[in-house]
């Protein structure tokens, strides 16, 4: 109990930037890490990235005996935080809480100061966020194929609400429209909460994202599919999009911790091992499941492949949607 409180206190002080005032550091004779970590969170407190970074920072501090100082740099959909991160020393002591958007989406739609292929490396898979396609019951469709049929019969009738332009949700809508050969109208909102509310009130008919799950379980929305080739245990009755008749890659959302690619490989490996050990513990897994994520362990090579695949696949959708940044 006492250690727990001290850890929480440290995490709290860390986000204040006052960690230096508190705490004793156990002097561990280790090559790495030998100093404190800076953990850049490129979003405002309260979101999924913040929730993840709080638990990961706390555990990393406990595992290494070093302080982990959370540094919030929100804005421009994450680009401000990523650019700020590029300015930090590539020594393995600066971490970036990130999603696949930093590899597949943001560099294509916003001006950034990094190359997703050569400058940043995703260390671990913290979890996949199930992208659930939800529809308002007022439309009267129960499956993805029925939705396509409805959209063909009633062109211009269906709109989908997203948390903003150029987000994974937006691109998911573009993907659904492409694959179904139908026309869907995009309505951007400020954040997932507003978008979900619009779908509940009937202002928009579709919403794509993990936030829909609770409302599907409560019977307020109908789940048409979970993007990808696997069902999600949180919504066992909702088929995957592959099962629903749309084969192949689907837009996805996953969370990771990123480091500079310039960090020496042994350090990357050491960090990845340390973080994966945290991710493998039951209580962390349990917490991530409660956040609505699907945890899993993926090695460095596997993460690189995920990032590079997303860059190509999202790139196609971004071009189709006319979202690509003019360089």
């Amino acid at each position: 109990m006492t250690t727990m409180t001290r850890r929480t206190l440290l995490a709290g002080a860390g986000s204040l930037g006052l960690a230096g005032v508190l705490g004793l550091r156990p002097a561990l004779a280790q090559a790495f890490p030998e100093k404190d970590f800076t953990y850049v969170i490129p979003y405002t407190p309260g979101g999924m990235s913040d929730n993840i970074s709080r638990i990961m920072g706390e555990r990393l501090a406990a595992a290494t005996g070093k302080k982990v100082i959370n540094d919030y740099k929100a804005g421009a959909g994450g680009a401000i935080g990523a650019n700020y991160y590029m300015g930090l020393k590539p020594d393995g002591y600066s971490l970036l809480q990130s999603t696949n958007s930093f590899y597949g989406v943001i560099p294509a739609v916003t001006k950034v100061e990094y190359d997703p292929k050569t400058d940043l490396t995703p260390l671990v898979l913290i979890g996949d966020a199930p992208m659930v396609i939800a529809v308002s019951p007022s439309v009267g469709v129960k499956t993805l194929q029925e939705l396509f049929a409805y959209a063909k019969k009633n062109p211009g009738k269906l709109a989908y609400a997203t948390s903003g332009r150029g987000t994974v949700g937006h691109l998911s809508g573009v993907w659904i429209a492409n694959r179904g050969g139908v026309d869907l109208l995009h309505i951007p909102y400020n954040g997932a909460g507003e978008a979900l509310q619009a779908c509940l009130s009937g202002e928009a008919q579709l919403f794509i994202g993990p936030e829909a799950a609770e409302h599907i379980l409560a019977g307020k929305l109908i789940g048409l599919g979970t993007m990808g080739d696997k069902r999600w245990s949180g919504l066992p009755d909702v088929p995957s999009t592959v099962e629903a008749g749309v084969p192949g890659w689907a837009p996805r959302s996953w969370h990771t911790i990123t480091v500079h690619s310039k960090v020496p490989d042994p350090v990357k490996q050491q960090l990845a091992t340390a973080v994966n050990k945290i991710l493998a513990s039951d209580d962390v897994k349990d917490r991530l499941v409660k956040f609505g994520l699907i945890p899993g362990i993926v090695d460095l090579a596997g993460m690189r492949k995920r990032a590079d695949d997303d860059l190509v696949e999202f790139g196609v959708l971004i071009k189709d949607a006319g979202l690509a940044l003019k360089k």
Partner: protein
Amino acid sequence: MFDQSLLAGLALGFQVAVDPTNILFCFLGCLIGTLIGVLPGLGPTATIAILLPMTSALSPVAGLITLAGIYYGAQYGGSTTSILLRLPGEASSVVTVLDGHAMTRRGRGGAALAIAAWGSFFAGTVGTLFIALFAPLLAVLVLKFGAAEYFVLMALGLVASVVLAQGSVLRALAMIAIGLLFGLVGTDANSGQYRFTFGSYELLNGLPFVPLVVGLFGIADILIALEQARDAEASQAGKIGSLWPTREETKRAAPAVARGTLIGLFLGLLPGGGALMSSFVAYSVEKRVSDKEGTFGKGDPAGVAAPESANNAGAQTSFLPLLTLGLPSNAVMALMTGAMLIHGIVPGPRIMTNQPNLFWGLIASMWIGNLMLLVINLPLVGIWVQMLKIRYSVLYPIILVVSLVGIYSVDYSTFDVFLTAAFGLLGYGMNKWKCEPAPLVLAFVLGPMMEQYFRRAMLVARGDLAIFVERPISLTLLLITAALLAGIAAPHVRSFRRKAFAE
């Protein structure tokens, strides 16, 4: 059946809320909230973000009660600096500055603080009851508000802001125009175009709110005071007189409290600008209803009572979308969903049925929290007012440092500090040109929201303007706006015609 479940729910809630641990944390939350509300710059969002990890050591109910206490405690505290120092720390206390600070100048600062505290308590009590009684019903109402309704409501707010102007209407319109332009800065949500960003990353998200208000109100006021060598005045404001409102002041304030509460209850439900809209609208309505002798802006107790009651009532009802639908209506509520997730509670429409002790416990603790805030704040009035006895030559540097540290700590951005300085200079200039900052601030906040809602309404209606008149709530609001506009314009048209005929 309905009454039964309500009584049972409230009984359960109070049982949870009066648990000694929960009471203690409720008190702590309220105390912290009051203090950070008093500190300009540092707001409840930053504080809750900092304290969030600590709540993981508490039970879910105690954790949420603490955070909720900080949130509405800040609404109480936020009025203190507005009234005493002309320094609104929160968006919702911007209008409180107008009459609140004027009362301080007349040596009635203590009375203004007491009115704000009592008004907030009344509003909080009604707000809590209101949530308990109508939670499921109001959840439906929230969903009735679509883009069209929001747009018209914002338009109503903008027209009402002209009423805020104490001097020339033309100058107020100019300030609204500047506020709208400031509001345009940043990335356009629909097209992704950058507007007025001049290649700066810091401006991609638009101009930040706190530097704008602290600059325009607080810093500008200090500059003017420097110029006038106001130290001579210190002793006068320091003569505080009675801390309690006189009978006359109470008589002015009481009906304003009731009207403000009613407005806050409904506007607080709306996401985004709810709390802000409620204080602005309450002030505007009050000015229309009870400003018979032109006392508004010169220290009218009603001008303090209405917005303060409204923002506190709004603060209570803004919990409703979160508790009934799991939808956060502002940044603080988003953090509350984070706090729930830390404890493994998934925010959503099932909270009320799956977590009845959390739902009712939080509601009951809100009322207890409001009572505590009254107990904390009334004795503090005497202490805060002592601040005015400090010589300005000492007080002003302190205010300056505390504000700038607060602003820096929001995003750790030096850019924001420079912005504050720039807005301070602008505020000084505006004072020289007799232009008022309140309409500018309202337009700054409402402008971008109006644009977004308008464009969203157009998307929803596939470009058909009829959406604004086809939907009953939207049409009603539109008619009220038109009537208000006519009311404002009429005297000017009349005097113009008289002049025209005379020539």
